[in-house]
């Protein structure tokens, strides 16, 4: 809502309150003033000039030589505007004047003729071209004849005004009109509101003789009123009216249309003027549209309606879409002699649905939608418009408003203990203070014992419950004056859950391992959403948006790795080849019942490419490989103390290298994978060797490890024996670990693999693995005999189960 400071002065005494100070006060009281626009910004030294003569420039067809009387002198000005003419009063930028865009007017010569200034168009004076009245759109502006030569042209054009741009939220729709703003500002400044006193001189002839009104769509139209005004003269509006509309951001069109807009701005009540002769009947019938019914609206668009829309008809054909826009068939034109003036109340939701479906949000529709209408002034607004039409466009106002429905409704009364104000705000306001604030807001309020009774003006439909009333008191009292306290309730223990604590530990662990945390988008393409999932079996599918903005962001991810691949590509494209990233985030799997929530699991995923260390100055850099990633994961599981329940088994997965991929098992359940991207995938994405992992973090963090219990330190020495085993090359180290661990029993305390060898001195297809085995009994010293026996058992088990031979 654009509020003209000068216009507002009609209703409230603003003496001593600058536009900026006013804006600050309004903002603090709850309606944000987004901008204060000084209309004369960058403009100065513009005078009213009188074109004494206007002749063709001797050397240019399209230019005129004008002698312009500026009051103190008459100067020659060269003017190229097509509409310049002798006798006009025009805005003149004198030599030395400034125009917007930092333009300075100087004496100059145009095709050999001196020009002492410039005759201006409105847009040259800073008025938005969209708001310039059509008759002046392609030329200079022309004042009315009574403009006084030599005076400051800016005040004639109201360009000495300031416009406050109010951000209207759903609870401040009452400020979608000047009277509402006046009430608001009067309450803030603690002043009185001086409203227009409407006086209509009606002719004896009743309007009912010309028109009848029926509301058929009672569900959506509580009230419809019509006035008839005859013998009008349609022409441009007077200067003051045009100025006010321009300040409010509405382009002046003609006096009748301008007046309906003006009253809408003033009262919030949208009005519509029909050309009575073109209306097509003597009957207004307000009904729901028929399915498929057509109307061409004032913007020359053909609209197809449905039964949820409401239309104004002449009994047969629609002549307007209720609350949104009129039809061309009954549009007021310069030939119009009689108007039918509509002032009606339409249901907010109906108007919103229609405006939204037809994609035609208008000044009128937004006022109906947001309930920015003073319901009980619906008739007064019609009277105000009739009065203005009479004054400005001539005409005879037929007597009475022809109407159907309920013209006024009674205000709601809110009752609450007056102390509630203090209970909610934490203030200590006396009842008298509360009553006086409510009276500043023009709310009728009184105390009945401890109960506050407040009658809520109809113009404030946003105030419906006691809390709303508390807010009204609070915002006028000022939140600056509310103390800052601390809650007095019982204290509580603030803490992270075990899961949240462990998750933070996982963050810190990966960061310590040199990985950067990434946060990528959950929405991706349908294809990427299902790539590299941990659980790729089963029919469970992806979650897709009903109306995606693009295919790129159409489907919720079921894995994180594909998103991280994009991040690595981004880095490679910028010559950054060493990337280590991790991400913790949700993945989504659709539920079979489509209106049930999808399954959401928190995953951790990582990606590694390039060298292992960032700075290397000794020899060749070591590149990350499968074991880099596995080590990082083993370290994580170890830190979380679940390593003994974790195993890695060779696996084949789409998109991953068939020989360099393992599934991660927690006990017997697959909870993730790690591996190298398949060379084909790497090639297709222009990647170097890239290693990835993804793991269901919830499964890992939800393992209940119980409390930590101290175990006594061993009092007896441990004995370490090494064993080197030769096996076929396809035997996995993990298998040997399992056999050794089982055979070693309780005496075997630790197994360390310290050498893997293949090559010279070994047969083709064979490899040697050397383990260091630590034996320990915490209760006693082990004898050589016991150790020899266990060591022998281990060797035998390895021979029997895996065909291992002791390396000679």
């Amino acid at each position, binding site marked *: 809502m654009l509020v003209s400071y000068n216009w507002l002065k009609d209703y409230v005494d603003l003496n001593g309150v600058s536009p900026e100070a006013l804006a600050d006060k309004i903002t*603090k009281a*709850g309606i*944000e003033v987004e901008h204060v626009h000084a209309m004369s910004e960058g403009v100065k030294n513009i005078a009213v000039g009188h074109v004494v003569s206007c002749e063709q420039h001797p050397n240019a067809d399209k230019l005129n030589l004008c002698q312009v009387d500026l009051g103190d002198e008459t100067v020659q000005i060269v003017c190229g505007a097509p509409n310049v003419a002798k006798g006009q009063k025009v805005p003149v930028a004198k030599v030395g004047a400034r125009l917007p865009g930092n333009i300075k007017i100087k004496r100059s010569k145009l095709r050999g003729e001196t020009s002492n200034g410039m005759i201006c168009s409105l847009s040259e004076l800073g008025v938005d071209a969209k708001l310039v009245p059509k008759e002046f759109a392609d030329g200079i502006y022309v004042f009315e004849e009574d403009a006084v030569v030599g005076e400051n042209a800016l005040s004639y054009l109201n360009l000495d005004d300031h416009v406050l741009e109010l951000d209207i939220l*759903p*609870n401040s729709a009452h400020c979608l009109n000047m009277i509402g703003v006046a009430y608001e500002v009067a309450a803030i400044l603690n002043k009185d509101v001086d409203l227009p006193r409407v006086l209509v001189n009606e002719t004896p002839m009743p309007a009912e003789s010309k028109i009848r009104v029926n509301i058929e769509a009672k569900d959506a139209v509580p009230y419809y009123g019509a006035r008839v005004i005859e013998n009008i003269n349609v022409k441009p509006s007077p200067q003051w009216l045009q100025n006010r509309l321009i300040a409010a951001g509405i382009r002046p069109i003609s006096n009748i249309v301008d007046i309906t807009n003006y009253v809408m701005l003033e009262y919030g009540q949208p009005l519509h003027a029909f050309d009575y002769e073109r209306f097509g009947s003597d009957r207004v019938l307000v009904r729901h549209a028929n399915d498929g019914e057509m109307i061409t609206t004032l913007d020359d668009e053909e609209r197809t309606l449905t039964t949820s829309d409401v239309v104004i008809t002449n009994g047969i054909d629609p002549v307007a879409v209720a609350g949104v826009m009129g039809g061309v068939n009954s549009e007021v034109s310069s030939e119009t002699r009689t108007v039918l003036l509509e002032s009606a109340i339409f249901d907010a939701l109906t108007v919103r649905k229609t405006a*939204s479906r037809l994609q035609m949000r208008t000044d009128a529709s937004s006022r109906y*939608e947001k309930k920015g209408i003073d319901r009980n002034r619906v008739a007064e607004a019609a009277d105000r418009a009739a009065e203005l039409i009479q004054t400005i466009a001539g005409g005879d106002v037929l007597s009475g408003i022809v109407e159907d429905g309920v013209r006024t409704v009674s205000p709601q009364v809110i009752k609450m203990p007056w102390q509630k104000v203090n*209970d*909610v*705000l*934490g203030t200590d306001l006396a009842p008298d203070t509360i009553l006086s604030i409510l009276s500043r807001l023009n709310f009728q309020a009184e105390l009945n014992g401890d109960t506050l009774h407040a009658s809520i003006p109809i113009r404030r439909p946003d105030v419906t*419950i006691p*809390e709303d009333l*508390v*807010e009204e008191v*609070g915002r006028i009292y000022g*939140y600056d004056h*509310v*103390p800052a*306290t601390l*809650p*007095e*309730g*019982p204290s*509580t*223990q*603030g803490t*992270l859950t075990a899961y949240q604590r462990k998750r*933070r530990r996982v963050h810190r662990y990966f960061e310590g*391992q*040199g990985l*950067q*945390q*990434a*946060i990528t*988008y*959950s*929405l991706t393409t349908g294809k990427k959403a299902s790539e590299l999932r941990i659980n790729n079996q089963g029919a469970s599918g992806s*979650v897709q*948006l*009903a*109306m995606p*903005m693009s295919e790129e962001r159409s489907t*919720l991810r079921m894995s994180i790795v594909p998103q991280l691949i994009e*991040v690595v590509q981004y*880095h490679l494209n*910028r010559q*950054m080849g060493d990337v*280590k990233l991790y991400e913790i*985030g*949700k993945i*989504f799997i659709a539920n079979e019942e489509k*209106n049930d*929530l*999808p399954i*959401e699991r928190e995953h951790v995923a990582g990606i590694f490419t390039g060298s292992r*260390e*960032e*700075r290397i*100055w000794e020899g060749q850099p070591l590149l990350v490989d499968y074991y880099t990633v596995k080590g990082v994961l083993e370290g994580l599981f170890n830190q979380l103390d679940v390593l003994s329940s974790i195993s890695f088994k060779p696996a084949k997965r789409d998109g991953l290298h068939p020989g360099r991929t393992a599934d991660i098992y927690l006990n017997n359940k697959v909870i993730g994978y790690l591996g190298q991207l398949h060379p084909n995938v790497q090639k297709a994405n222009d990647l170097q060797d890239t290693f990835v992992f993804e793991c269901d973090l919830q499964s890992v963090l939800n393992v209940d490890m119980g409390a930590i219990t101290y175990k006594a330190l061993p009092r007896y020495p441990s004995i370490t024996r090494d064993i080197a085993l030769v096996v076929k090359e396809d035997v996995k180290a993990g298998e040997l670990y399992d056999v050794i661990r089982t055979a070693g029993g309780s005496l075997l305390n630790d197994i360390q693999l310290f050498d893997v060898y293949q090559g010279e001195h070994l047969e083709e297809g064979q490899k040697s693995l050397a383990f260091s085995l630590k034996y320990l009994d915490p209760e006693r010293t082990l004898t050589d005999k016991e150790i020899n026996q266990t060591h022998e058992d281990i060797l035998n088990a390895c021979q029997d189960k895996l065909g291992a031979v002791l390396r000679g």
Partner: protein
Amino acid sequence: MQEKLQALKNEAKDLIQGARDLKTLQDLRVKYLGKKGPITEVLRGMGKLSKEERPVIGQLANDVRASIQEAIDGKQGILENEAIEARLASETIDVTLPGRISSPGNHHPLTAVIEEIEDFFIGLGFSIAEGPEVEKDYYNFEALNLPKDHPARDMQDSFYITEELLLRTHTSPVQARTMEKHKGKGPVKVICPGKVYRRDTDDATHSHQFMQIEGLYVDKNVRLSDLKGILTAFAKKMFGEERQIRLRPSFFPFTEPSVEMDISCFHCNGEGCSVCKRTGWIEILGSGMVHPNVLEMSGFDSKEYTGFAFGMGPERIAMLKYGIDDIRHFYTNDTRFLKQFKRA
């Protein structure tokens, strides 16, 4: 005999003094103090001396031996030090070459901001609550006083999946779910961080996915002044001790009264600059007293309980705090960007 011992001592001392290495010194030790050395010989021949001479010569021989011993030990210490110094000199490295460490990674700036906020409120007795990112229409809107026909919930603004499911547009549904779990009994004190989604085209100031962190405090006798007190402490923690706050009336469907919180600009200290658009104030968060409809729908008696709620955007806070100019940086994950926040 006495002269002989004296000469021996002088001769030995000269040789010891002249020794260049530990080997020579060891040879001298054997030569003079060994079992076959001259002093041992003197002591061994003591039996031949007179009763009067014996103690004198014995004393002298022992003194000479002690003296030689001392000279050798002293020299040995010197030579050993020299040897160590020589070895250390040969072991000198360029201590200014880069160390052999792998640079640690760091968390994302949004994680830094969220954890800082979480920790502040944990200190005040709040817990952290989380909820699904795909939400039921009921929790995302209806339970928050946004009935089906409310203008603020246009289909155009949200990512719907079905009529009933959508990507949550704020983390407020977690508040509704948390209140429901408390079954009408306070206090409820939670912070709800998480990802939210809106139908916005990504540009420098909009992102279809972003973070939100919200707080909720429901108990008997919770007042707007308590909200002001807690938010004042919060603003000082996040943006510095000198910060002032200002509450401005605003509108949210789920709070009444609703307020927006501004902090005095940390860039210009309230004097007006480009960061605060010359107002001296920066909008940080929205908040208010929980709307009675919201309390009631989640099972709380609004006559008995009141509460406040607030919500803010970690991206906005990080952008203000660190001067970041484009919200897309947070989701591009350029490591040159991420690494700038290792201290965060």
